[in-house]
């Protein structure tokens, strides 16, 4: 028995060492991977951004705001921090980590919609894998993103359990955090039993207020923007008035301007959307130009 336990222990030690080596190698590769979800994080961690205009929000921010077009009109250096599948809690986490590595911006556009003040965790957690050793990720991400104990303590386990091949499956190339989707309109029929409800989670609301107070302290101007939705989304949304009431109240409290493009001229034409919530590249570029002009006027006032 003694011999068995000693040999098994040696094997397990060697196996752990091997997994640690694999972990280091794969982490290194992903920290230099310039595709998919890792590109923005790598740019944030590697101090490449230094933007004076930041865009925050969910997937709608991610695919709606072209930094290149905004910069061409506003003569800024902008960057899109939009996080796919996120509510404000995750958007703010990305911003906090951004600020640990980058100087403060001058302006922040906070895109919002019905679900922004809800609370989400556990979506595409693999994007955090290469940064597990970072203290901010350990403090602000790992405790909240549904990682298992095994993910945290066993080297390489998180990669293996997710599937190494899948880490490289997303080959989308984003430009300064923005992705222009060249997709065409394709939607499922409206499901009246599954309406999108406006929800306010106290945790997200508290984080939003914390963010706004901090921004005011630092002299960062925040602007709330509701980017266009397709008109048919109104049939799928509930409590839209409550949403506007809440966001206007917050805006008044913190003296923040709101730009409303909810029912923009784009909203009535499916040519500009690939689904009810998301503009395609064509729509996003028209919207970005439109927004840039309005921002220019607003900032000049």
């Amino acid at each position: 028995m003694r011999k068995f336990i000693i040999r098994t222990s040696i094997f397990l030690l060697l196996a752990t060492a091997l997994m640690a080596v694999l972990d280091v190698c794969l982490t290194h590769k992903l920290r230099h991977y310039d595709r998919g979800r890792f590109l923005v994080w790598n740019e944030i961690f590697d101090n490449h951004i230094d933007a004076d205009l930041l865009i925050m929000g969910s997937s709608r921010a991610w695919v709606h705001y072209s930094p290149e077009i905004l910069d061409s009109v506003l003569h800024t250096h902008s960057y899109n921090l939009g996080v796919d599948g996120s509510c404000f809690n995750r958007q703010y986490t990305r911003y906090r980590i951004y600020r640990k590595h980058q100087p403060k911006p001058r302006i922040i556009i906070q895109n919002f919609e019905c679900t922004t003040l809800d609370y989400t965790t556990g979506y595409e957690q693999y994007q955090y894998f290469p940064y597990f050793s970072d203290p901010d990720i350990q403090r602000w991400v790992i405790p909240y993103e549904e990682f298992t104990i095994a993910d945290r303590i066993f080297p390489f386990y998180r990669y293996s359990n997710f599937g190494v091949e899948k880490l490289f499956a997303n080959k989308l190339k984003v430009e300064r955090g923005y992705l222009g989707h060249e997709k065409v309109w394709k939607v499922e029929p409206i499901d009246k039993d599954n309406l999108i409800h406006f929800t306010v989670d106290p945790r997200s609301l508290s984080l939003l207020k914390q963010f706004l107070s901090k921004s005011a302290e630092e002299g960062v101007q925040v602007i709330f923007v509701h980017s266009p939705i397709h008109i048919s989304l109104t049939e799928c949304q509930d409590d839209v008035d409550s949403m506007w009431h809440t966001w206007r109240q917050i805006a008044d409290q913190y003296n923040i301007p709101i730009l409303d493009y909810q029912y923009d001229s784009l909203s009535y034409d499916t040519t500009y959307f690939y689904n009810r919530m998301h503009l395609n590249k064509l729509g996003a570029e028209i919207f970005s130009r439109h927004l840039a002009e309005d921002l220019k006027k607003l900032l000049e006032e």
Partner: protein
Amino acid sequence: MLFNSIEFAIFLPIVFLLYWFVFNKKVKTQNLFILAVSYLFYGWWDWRFLLLIAFTSFCSWGSGMLIYQSNNPKRKKLINAANIIINLLILGLFKYYDFFAQTFADLFLNGKSDGILLNLILPVGISFYTFQALSYSIDIYRNKIQPTRDIVQFFAFVSFFPQLVAGPIERASNLLPQFERPRTFNYRDAAEGMRLILWGLFKKIVIADNCAEYVNAVFAAPDAHKGSTLILAAIFFSFQIYGDFSGYSDIAIGTAKLFGIRLMKNFNVPYFSRDIAEFWRRWHISLTTWFRDYLYIPLGGSHCSKAKVVRNTFVIFLVSGLWHGANWTFVVWGAFHAFLFLPLILLGRNRNHRDTVAANRVLPSLKECGQMLLTFTLATIGWVIFRAESITAAWDYLASIPQDRLLSFPWLPSKTHYLVLVMCIVFMLAEEWNHRLQGTPLQLARIKSRVVRFTIYLILLALIALLNSGSGNQFIYFQF
């Protein structure tokens, strides 16, 4: 709790240490401990169904005692029959009731099954432990074994966690005596067990789960794929089901060895079979021999007229098909294999290949290669029926193969990934070919250097870690 889960990786060493260092004084205490951890292992999935295992175990244990104590042959027969009926009724209720009710509704009620379906959850491994428990009382009835008075020992025999949910379906004559005598730790067995666990994980995680990714994508929309892709998916499914099930069996046998228990072999290089009869002597051996001993031989076996042998063969395969699941595809799969058996029976060739292929040679002859390839092809056609959602879907799949770009390069989402997978399949086959006579791969005793042996184990481990598909796939046979 899945063998390929982190929970099991924590559970196993704790149980191992407690078993050998805390509960090692008395065999009764060890059995009680095995029973407790086996119920914990099963209850991890759904504790409510522990009552079902306990009830099944109690029925077989009680009927075994009553059969043994009775001097009246009619009474013995009655008790044995009652136990079989109770067990099969439970199995039928959970596994087949909805299937037959739906078939009835389709035939006579225009498919309206409202109110007649029970929609019961299928308890994991019910077919396995029911058959294992049944064999005990039947063997007592046949005077092959004596019953055990120790209820804990019997309950531990039925629920022994390594083989509880997907076999091998053990016989009381092999496993029960091992629970009667004190177990002593044996280094060779334990080391062999560890190797088998590693090999089983390789087959499950690297081969089966990666094949599954491709197979699932193709079987979900066969119309969207060309002939060559459909062939590749069918071949991958052959390796998926083999890697999945034989991998599970290897882990089960290896885990049992760590506790000083020897389980029967369940697979013996089936894809190196030269005909279908040999294939069935090497595939899911514990089930095949169960049906042979408790159904085929009582029906007359092969010691009767040719017509009856053919009838018995069809009965065995149809029942075996239905055992796998409540779907007509399994019945047709069974019938397909019965038809493949037919010429062998009629020509008296079903016992031709009782040895191992190329037993005294390194490589097979050209003829043997052809025979193995043909057998593998036939088995693969059978697996398409097995895997398909319905008989129509299976037919459409097979019929589509020759219709569209059969000779073109198959669809591969990632060429490098699938090249590595094919290399792993080739490695698995080469390793199993190399040890086809011993039947246990990864026998590295002839490599004297411990460093080299450890390096090989670590390479396998690295492959498991790197090629894990991340889908966390269940074992296919859990559903049976």
